[in-house]
């Protein structure tokens, strides 16, 4: 072992690099072979591919909304808010009862353009409250603790929230009512695009745009950016750190709550206390994919993940002759996460944080 006084000690292990290099080649080869097989076999028509991509974009935009919460918090506090999936769930699960009430009274279908935004605002408020409580009770005291501690707290908070809501609302599944104007599809070329997908995508895009405008063009957004750059100096500049942090959590929470209702319009069933766990992990994957700490990155990462999930199993895995390809949809998502962390930890758009994280 040589005595080296800098980072290069890791690089001297060329056999590790070699293995990773081999891994890179193997993965690319598998993707190419699988795709080629599927496409050449003509099993799916191009219309079906387009359809899949569009549904992937819709699902991905929901991931993106949740991912924004992760990325905002990570940018400011350098911690993964493991409980963010539960913040999403709290809004979705609480608003569903209001939605059902609207449906029963007929309000939902007589004035959807009023009812739906009301639901979104309601869910956003609930999620915001949960996020703020989380920050205040569980995270603020631990701001200076070693890395491991806030992560464990977040895991604990995640369980706590799940089972709290199970205790409140019970363990049975609820469902959002179907909204009449969202049913049906309209043709785009030769493909029939479901209206719900278009609405979901547009709504998410609108919210993301609002956030972008908030962060880039307002004073408080500037403060947020400053705090994520350097906390101590911002404090010296007169920024109230605590207030900004609370604000960040609130915004992230609000977006997650909105995502909850939007998700309810798109995939109405399956609302229960556990519904936030898997989207939470996938949204985190999306945030990392796009570059954590990077807002457009989270959006892009979400959309990218959604599309990969939609076309991946059919394109690659089925082509490789793997039976039950769709069961392995999540394997694709997780493998992509790991691959991104290995090969390009700063994500697609590059993260705005110190390289120390990698």
């Amino acid at each position: 072992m040589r005595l080296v006084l800098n980072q290069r000690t890791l690089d001297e292990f060329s056999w590790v690099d070699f293995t990773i290099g081999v891994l890179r080649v193997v993965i690319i080869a598998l993707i190419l072979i699988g795709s080629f097989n599927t496409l050449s076999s003509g099993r799916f028509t191009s219309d079906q591919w387009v359809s899949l991509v569009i549904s992937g974009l819709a699902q991905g935009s929901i991931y993106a909304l949740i991912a924004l919460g992760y990325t905002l918090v990570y940018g400011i506090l350098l911690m993964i808010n493991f409980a963010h999936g539960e913040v999403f769930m709290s809004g979705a699960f609480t608003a569903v009862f209001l939605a059902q009430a609207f449906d029963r009274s007929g309000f939902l279908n007589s004035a959807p353009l009023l009812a739906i935004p009301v639901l979104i605002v309601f869910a956003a408020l609930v999620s915001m409250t949960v996020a703020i409580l989380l920050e205040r009770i569980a995270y603020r005291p631990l701001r200076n603790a070693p890395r491991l501690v806030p992560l464990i707290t977040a895991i604990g908070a995640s369980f706590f929230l799940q089972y709290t809501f199970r205790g409140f609302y019970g363990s049975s599944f609820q469902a959002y009512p179907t909204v009449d104007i969202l049913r049906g599809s309209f043709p785009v070329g030769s493909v029939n695009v479901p209206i719900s997908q278009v609405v979901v995508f547009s709504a998410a895009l609108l919210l993301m745009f609002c956030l972008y405008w908030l962060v880039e063009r307002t004073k408080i957004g500037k403060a947020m950016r400053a705090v994520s750059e350097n906390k101590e100096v911002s404090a010296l500049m007169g920024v109230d750190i605590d207030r900004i942090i609370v604000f960040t959590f609130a915004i992230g929470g609000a977006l997650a709550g909105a995502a909850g209702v939007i998700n309810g319009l798109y995939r109405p069933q399956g609302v229960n206390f556990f519904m936030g766990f898997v989207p939470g992990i996938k949204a985190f994957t999306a945030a990392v994919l796009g570059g954590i700490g990077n807002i457009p990155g989270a959006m892009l990462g979400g959309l990218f993940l959604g599309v990969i999930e939609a076309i991946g199993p059919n394109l690659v895995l089925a082509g490789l002759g793997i039976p039950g390809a769709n069961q392995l949809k999540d394997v694709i998502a997780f493998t992509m996460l790991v691959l991104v962390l290995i090969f390009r930890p700063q994500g697609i758009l590059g993260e705005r944080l110190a390289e120390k994280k990698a």
Partner: protein
Amino acid sequence: MKRILPILLLLTLFAMLTGVQAAQLECTDEIGCVEIGPDDPITIGYMLTISGATSFLGEDSVGGIQIALAERDGMLLDHEIELVAEDSLCSAEGGQTAAQNMAARDEVLGVIGTSCSSSAAAALPIISSAGMVMISPSNTAPSLTNDDTASGGIWQPGYFRTAHNDLFQGAVAAQFAYNELGLTRLATIHDGSPYADGLQAVMAEVFTELGGEVVFQGAINVNDTDMTAILTEIAAAGPDIIYFPIFEPEGNFIAAQSDETPGLENVVLMGADGLLSTSFPENTGAAALGMYLSGPYIEGEAYDAFLESWAEIIGGVPPSGFHAHAYDAVNILLDAIEAVAQVGDDGTILVGRQALRDAIAATSGYVGLTGTLSCNPTGDCATGEALAIFEITESELEGNWPPPVVWTPPPAEAE
């Protein structure tokens, strides 16, 4: 003559003594007996899934048990009935822990359980070697009542079930699809649970035997919400029926999203007892119209009375479909205990374990809520006769239940 009196007295005394001895209880059972003192309760237990994501299954069965006990005022043979609760968690280790806890209590005569087939696989050997009796209200996996280990059977003595065997359910589904509807191209989806996987395998096998073709067999994961990828894959295979014996909400998603998937507009959708509950049409909406479901067919005045008791004692409606099976299971167990119990003069009860097993195994023509039950040597007490194919119509969307029966298997099919 005077000498006879003392001898007579002695003889009478002797007779009295032997007579008293004859009234004392003796255990001649192969496995052993459970002695219950005059003030002790008769103890039975249950091992069901009462926590976690699938707790509705356990809660449903527990409700059935509670109603059965309430109807007996909680008493049997003038002894109080004590119910021991264990949570089997819908997993193998949960089943094992629950079984160990149960087996450690010698006073337990029989257990109602488990909810899930994976728990039963682990619990079965333990309960069986403890000499106890286990009656399941909702295990449907074929392997549990198959005593041929070479073909994967894991039956052990003492196990019974009032739920149907999935060999019947899969066959019923296949016969309906092929013979009644005339469909020939089958696609199946399971969700990674042993139950769903096993059921779709049976359906596919029988369908092929009848002459149909299986064009696709695939799976999704529990917690998946987006089904467009697999539905597109299925559309590419061109089936005329999709069979998905899974649970909510994945079943709801498949039903709802198949409407949106090009190529699947005219495909028949069919599910199994996992979706046979009021919440399914409520949550799925119009997309569920015309869908077929196989499952236990329970009706009649007795069942209506049962539901009324449920609303009164527990509140609301049963969350799943096996409550009546749990009710029947408990009653079979308690009736059998009553039949084999030797009751002493002072109120002591002696129950032979092997005798109890034999009594339950001899159940024949028992009229329960779920139909007429007769147990076969390897534990199947229900036959396919209690199964039916239902269709979801407009009235279910408006909240009526149960859906109309469109087909029941002809009696000759029940094996």
